[in-house]
């Protein structure tokens, strides 16, 4: 199996090199004419599919590999588990909902809009209950934000483990949300009863069995948190919290409560299971960090990557990747081909989105030389994405969450790519 794959890859590479060589060396007349061009194809003579065939479309069958995948051994049950966005196969920045990663603690639930209730209680002037329709009557905003699970890249703390950008970095998606600012709803209930807002919190929980309650400091709640009901223009998917989820820009995905049912204004953090026993970071000396909410700047090359080997001949090649920061905008991404000895600036696909994915490209050449590909993001605060050594030096190796280290892909002379760790 192995040798067969390798042989066919080599044969393919050689073949493509020959074609590329031919196009340069020989005149066009020496080539055999391409039947795809010279012969009339079926699709060019018969008719296609009518507009009444597909009321809601899925990607064409040829793209069936571009799907979420999970890693069975990670969790005890797929009901309380995670899967990964196929970031290796996507471009641009917006993640289609259908392949955006899911993380549930008690499974994804079906909650009708008619059955949806959102309660605001605690230290408010008037505890309120909203229906779904109520939410759509408040002024709303649209924003693009990334949502990254704090455990993204968590399996890589101790060393290179999973062979694919989907698995090492796929606990992330990036969507355009439509929703009501949380501050609008808090104002509606009235914060007079809360007194000084400086040391106040909101506790948010979902309607599912896990409830996944989290405490958010009031300052953040009044800043940019959204109560969202649409993503990428359409209703949220069930697995992302239909009909209403919380969007907490730049902060770890676990706080983005799905199937949102209750917002409580409180004078202390609840210290729920999700913010004590989980989503806390154990450092080398055994002490833990809590309230590590912000996702620091990070990037990864999505192509080439282990699932996206180089399968073209030598010459022009596009290195493509994603960068993001929970602190704001990505201002620069550097790419290295030699494992961090030399770096060059990548081209940012679209700049300026705060707390959203930024696409980067390095328009370069590959001539069959082995490479150790790395990318390094910088955000508007001046923070530079650290190496794995820097992270380990600061925190040790017994951590799970918030691994934002520089990733290395080894590209061999055949264009095969592998997840490695380097000196």
């Amino acid at each position, binding site marked *: 199996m192995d040798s067969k794959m390798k042989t066919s890859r080599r044969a393919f590479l050689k073949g493509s090199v020959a074609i590329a060589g031919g196009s340069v060396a020989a005149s066009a007349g020496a080539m055999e004419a391409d039947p795809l061009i010279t012969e009339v194809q079926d699709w060019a003579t018969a008719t296609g599919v009518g507009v009444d065939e597909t009321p809601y479309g899925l990607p064409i069958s040829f793209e069936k590999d571009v799907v979420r995948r999970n890693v069975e051994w990670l969790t005890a049950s797929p009901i309380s588990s995670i899967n990964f966005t196929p970031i290796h196969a996507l471009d641009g920045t917006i993640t289609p909902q259908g392949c955006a990663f899911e993380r549930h603690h008690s499974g994804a639930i079906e909650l009708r809009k008619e059955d949806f209730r959102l309660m605001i209680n605690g230290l408010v002037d008037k505890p309120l209950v909203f229906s779904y329709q109520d939410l759509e009557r408040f002024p709303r905003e649209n924003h693009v934000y990334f949502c990254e699970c704090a455990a993204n890249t968590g399996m890589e703390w101790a060393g290179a483990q999973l062979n694919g950008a989907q698995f090492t970095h796929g606990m992330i998606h990036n969507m355009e949300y439509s929703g009501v600012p949380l501050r609008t709803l808090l104002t509606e209930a009235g914060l007079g009863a809360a007194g000084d807002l400086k040391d106040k919190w909101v506790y948010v929980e979902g309607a599912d069995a896990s409830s996944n309650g989290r405490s958010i400091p009031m300052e953040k709640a009044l800043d940019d948190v959204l109560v969202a009901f649409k993503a990428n223009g359409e209703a949220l998917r069930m697995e992302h919290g239909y009909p209403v989820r919380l969007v907490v820009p730049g902060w770890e995905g676990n706080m983005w409560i799905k199937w949102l049912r*209750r917002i409580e204004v409180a004078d202390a953090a609840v*210290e729920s299971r999700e913010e*004590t026993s989980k989503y806390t970071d154990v450092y080398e000396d055994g002490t833990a960090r809590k309230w590590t*909410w912000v996702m620091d700047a990070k990037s990864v090359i999505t192509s080439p990557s282990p699932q996206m080997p180089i399968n073209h001949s030598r010459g022009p090649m596009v290195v493509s990747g994603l960068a993001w920061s929970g602190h704001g905008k990505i201002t620069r991404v550097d790419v290295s081909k030699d494992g961090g*000895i030399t770096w060059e600036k990548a081209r940012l696909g679209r700049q300026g989105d705060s707390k959203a994915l930024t696409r980067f490209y390095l328009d370069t050449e590959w001539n069959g030389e082995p490479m150790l590909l790395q990318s390094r993001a910088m955000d508007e605060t001046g923070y530079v994405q650290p190496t794995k050594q820097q992270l380990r030096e600061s925190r040790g190796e017994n951590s799970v969450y918030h691994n934002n280290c520089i990733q290395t892909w080894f590209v061999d002379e055949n264009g095969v790519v592998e997840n490695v760790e380097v000196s």
Partner: protein
Amino acid sequence: MGSSRMSKSLNQIVLPVAGGTALALSVALVVANLDYGQNKISSLEQRVEQATLQAEAAGRKASEEAAVVADLQAKIADLQAFAKETAARGTDLTEKAPKKDTGYGLGREALIAEIAAWDVDVLPDGRGLPAGRGDVFTGEEVFADKCASCHGDFAEGVDNWPVLAGGFDTLADKDPVKTVGSYWPYLSTVWDYVHRSMPFGEAQTLTADETYAIVAYILYSNDLVDDDFELSHENFSSFDMYNKDGFVVDDRPDREYARWSTEPCMENCKPSVEITMRATFLNVTPEEGDETLMNHAAVEDAPTFVANTATTDSGGDKEVPDTAPLAADPALVAAGEKVFKKCKACHAVGDGAKNKSGPQLNGLMGRMMGSVDGFKYSKAFKAAMEEGRVWNEVELTAFLAKPKAYMKGTKMSFAGIRKDQDLTAVIEFLRTTSE
């Protein structure tokens, strides 16, 4: 000097000075006393009065203009602030939703019964706890019935399900065992979570008393209470968890942000780079049907990257090589084989090599540490294997130079190779036996 000229010159003096009227007056009076007779004083006084009025008008105009300037400056400041804000927002030009302090009058007041049904969270100080009690004995029964299928009879965890007991003093290990006993800082969290979200698939079915009993049993299974212990809303908040002081609020801003916010290196950032670990050896990536997501690159294909060579040597007409460019130096290999005599007592290498008192060394370069079947490794090498560490030139050089220093706890009773040239040679020899 004509009056028009004089008033003009006064104008010029007075204009920039709002309070200059008095000065103009005294100048005019001095001039009058020198050049004109007493009989002209009254007409002069009229002129002075006129000049004063003009000066005042000019002063008003000046302050009006100053106000316009101030206004413009404020507008510029506004524009600059807007530009800054816009720049800060980048392409996110969303206008903020309007704010209405009086509210929109949407939603309805939540009823007390509704709040009671949903607001069930429990805080560390015990707020939110309902009245009730449960002892270890009862807890053991309820736990066996409702929890043990996943968490085990003794809270030890079945398969991949969470372990709830034990793990004390493992938090500083590389794989800390984070249980209720060893890690959870607050008892309220246990009560809250069990009551709200457990049992898995039957959440919110436990009574308050059952919850107290289960929590008491979990404490007992962690040896934190005796078997006659009863937990209730009365003694709840007096119970301190083992790891209550083990948490610090996020200190990344102080610990890392400043240190990692310096201008990054772009060239010659390190002398050389070697692969120290490869994901393929762990073989933990899921496969799909016949199509594997894994690749199967051979270990010896991994090159070392050196500053100023790997990146610059990428000429367009270079052939794509079929094998890794690692030609062995025959003389060095021969020298290495001699050095290897020191190792032969314990290690075999070559065709049919078997484990002796040391593991066989075929394919050593690129081999996972501690990975030879049938050899009883030290704990140190077993740990190295679990970490996925791989033998390469750097690791082997360090190990063979000072085995006990490099791998604390190794069973290999060999002091190490002192001469650098011997080290290089034996490693070259072992590299050839790896191919």
